[in-house]
């Protein structure tokens, strides 16, 4: 658990940033108890800054960079805070990292990045990428991403990930040198093509279905939630008008004046309280969003498996047909219709020498194909094995996180209700004095 490791070293250094308890909570839910990486280092995304510079086509652009802080965990400490190592990264570099991980570990459900553009916003929140609230939530999301990767049993050991955290310069080049791009492009093409698998693995089919359902329901939920937030905002804010009118009215009243005036203040407080309430609700929305995007990652793994399975089937089919061809050549019988067969019937049989030559070539091809199939099969099996392990891990994580999210939501609602009771009790008191 990312936070349990930070709690162990809480004595040494406090990595809590601006985080609200709820945000901290989210980091707490990464229950992967101390991966080797996290045992060694603390990771955080401390700040965000605006930069302007020339881009690839030599045009001015404004972008945001995020400060990644890493700090060595030294158990033999003298109580001092070691200064963290820092480097700056843009969102696009995070994307590059993630794409690399996706290609290199196709069987892993790779943690998602926070959204590129603000989605599911309710009207008050800006959908502008430069908006400070959006930037702040993105900062938190990026930190969450890094912690997720760092707490993953497989991903945390990746060298490219490590250098992402530690090597500011030249990291991009190193990534490109791995040649993952080429793999990425070809795989992307294949994945997007439609293909049908003859013997689908039932477990993966079910998982894919589940990922679709999860995506669908979380996105609908997020949409409705945004609308509800909008409405709630309206309800609270209109109460502010009570405050103003009561105050104006109290000026002409003798006996009622004081009661009206003070009640008005409480109405103002009530109206103002919605801002905090909705900010906390955003945390809940962010948690849902993470799993919306996780669902996508899950689906991707299933798709990749499908692709592998498909390729295996194609290869196996190829082998079978080649074997058939050999048989036909060897026995001279034509089992299936083939142009060769037809032409040989029309234009006469081949000479035995020709047949020998063909058979030889075919034998080689068959051996090749057999090896290919064996290889592909092994690849498939390995994929399935590894993927299944990660699926289990993911499932546990998801159940834990989402349950925690629901609990946090309940806690938040309780707080909202308590505040409401307080405000209206105060208001009632003022009314009673009118």
């Amino acid at each position, binding site marked *: *658990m990312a*936070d349990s490791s930070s709690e162990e070293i809480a004595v040494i250094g406090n990595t809590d940033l601006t985080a609200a*308890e*709820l945000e*901290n*909570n989210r980091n*707490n839910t990464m*229950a992967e108890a101390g991966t080797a990486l996290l045992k060694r280092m603390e990771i955080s995304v401390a700040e965000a800054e605006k930069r302007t510079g020339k881009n690839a086509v030599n045009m001015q652009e404004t972008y945001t960079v995020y400060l990644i802080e890493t700090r060595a965990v030294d158990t033999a400490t003298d109580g001092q805070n070691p200064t963290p190592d820092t480097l700056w990264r843009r969102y696009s570099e995070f994307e590059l990292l993630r794409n690399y991980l996706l290609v290199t570990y196709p069987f892993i459900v790779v943690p998602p990045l926070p959204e590129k553009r603000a989605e599911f916003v309710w009207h008050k929140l800006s959908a502008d990428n430069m908006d400070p609230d959006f930037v702040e939530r993105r900062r938190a999301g990026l930190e969450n991403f890094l912690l997720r990767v760092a707490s993953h049993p497989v991903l945390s050991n990746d060298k490219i990930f490590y250098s992402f955290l530690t090597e500011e310069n030249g990291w991009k080049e190193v990534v490109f040198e791995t040649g993952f791009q080429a793999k990425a492009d070809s795989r992307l093409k294949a994945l997007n093509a439609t293909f049908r698998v003859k013997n689908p693995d039932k477990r993966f089919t079910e998982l894919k279905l589940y990922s679709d*359902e*999860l995506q669908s*329901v*979380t996105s*609908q*939920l997020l949409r*409705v*939630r945004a*609308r*509800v937030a*909008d*409405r*709630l905002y*309206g*309800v609270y804010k*209109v*109460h*502010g*008008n*009570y405050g103003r*009118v009561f105050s*104006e*009215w109290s*000026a*002409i009243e003798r006996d*009622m004046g004081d*009661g009206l005036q003070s*009640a008005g203040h409480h109405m103002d407080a009530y109206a103002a309280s919605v801002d905090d309430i909705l900010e906390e609700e955003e945390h809940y929305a962010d948690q849902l969003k993470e799993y919306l995007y996780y669902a996508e990652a899950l689906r991707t793994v299933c798709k990749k498996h499908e692709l592998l399975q498909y390729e295996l089937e194609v290869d196996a089919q190829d082998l079978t047909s080649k074997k058939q061809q050999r048989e036909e050549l060897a026995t001279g019988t034509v089992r299936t219709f083939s142009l060769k067969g037809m032409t040989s019937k029309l234009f006469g049989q081949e000479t035995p020498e020709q047949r020998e030559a063909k058979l030889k070539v075919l034998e080689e091809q068959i051996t090749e194909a057999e090896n290919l199939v064996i290889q592909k099969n092994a690849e498939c099996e390995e994929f399935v094995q590894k993927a299944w392990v990660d699926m289990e891990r993911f499932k546990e994580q*998801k*159940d834990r996180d*989402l*349950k925690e999210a*629901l*609990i*946090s*939501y*309940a*806690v938040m*609602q*309780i*707080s909202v*209700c*308590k505040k*409401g*009771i307080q405000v*209206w*009790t105060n*208001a*009632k008191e003022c*009314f*009673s004095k*009118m």
Partner: protein
Amino acid sequence: MSGIIVDPTAESASTQEITTDVSERMLDLDEDDDLEVFSKDATLADGSLFNASMPTSPASMINQFEEDADEKDIFVTVDNPESHVTAIETFITYRVLTKTTRSEFDSCEYEVRRRYQDFHWLKGRLEEAHPTLIVHPLPEKFVMKGMVERFNEDFIETRRKALHRFLNRIADHPILSCSEDFKIFLTAEASELTTHKKQGPGFLSRMGDTVRAVAATVRGVKNRPEEFTAIQEYVDTFSQKINSLDKVALRILKEQKEYLEDLKECEPMYTLWSGSEDELAEPLRGMAGCIDRCCRETGEQVNQLSENLVPALHEYVLCAETLKAVLRRRDNIQADVEAKSETLANKMTERESLKEEIDKLEDKMEFANNALKGDWERWQKNMREDIKAAFMCTAEKNIDYYEKCLAVWESFLLSQRSDLTVESSGEQDPAPQEIAKDEAPQAT
């Protein structure tokens, strides 16, 4: 029998700037103000009952009794709306029940049925006889467009309550309750009432009043006593403020309703989701349940607003107009005196008779002024109590709402937390549990 009626809502001062766009109220002018509804196609069955339940809430009845328990000797209730269908119109009548020990009444219990135009007639008569007394307003003749439908049960119920209040305010009034017209209204059979209505000043007199009112605004009053100027200023501001509050309350109601509609959509989402999950299925169903219960509570909140606060505020919007009319009438009387006195100063002949006239008018004015002064105190007291009661009720309902929702979420939390502690020990659950410690004795 339609005269020029001053529409109480025509002058609603909607000048207050409210931050959120508010005014969507439009008046729906009916063809004939005597008829509540004009329908050639009368599809409602004769005498269909709308609401045969409690005439008034027990609470308000008790309040009535407690208030002037020793002195109160007349009790009026308005209930039992029924629709009536004839060849040309469909309208609604209400049962008016009177219980009294007053000697002027032959019997001690009366039951009659009255329709809106009867109430309207009564109000007119009372205002004519006592131009400077503050008569409680009637619910609006015209229907708010888009707010409520005419035959809608809620509308009828709201109107019934307002009519009930109207009669009770009159019954409570030391002077108005002694009015002969009032007595006839409460006791006469339908035909008797019709006959009585036709007698006495009516159309023409009201005409005269209005003409004089117009003339008075042209003439103006020269030496209005300070106290009435103060009241006028108060009324002007009060009218503005109460109109604003009315709009605010309506807006809150609208937003609340829309919130409820959207909130309702959350519950099926969670239920749907729970179908895809196994471990999470139960907590998700729990969430769905919580939201469902909160929706119900929000619905109650909405009801309270629309049945209680909104009508209460609206009544005082109408009161403000009544007050303005009362002040105008008082001014008219004074203007009359001033005008006649001026004439006296310029006239050489007929001075005696003119002086007599002026004396009478001055008596009338003094009487009117005193009546207003007395009633003004009374009105302010009633207003304070009514507004206070309306807002207290709203505050109480809101407290109740939040308390009920609190219970819902707390029990959900309890059910989820107990699962957690059973599942695994040593699982860290930092922030939420700190808060939970306050609420439930949870073993961590």
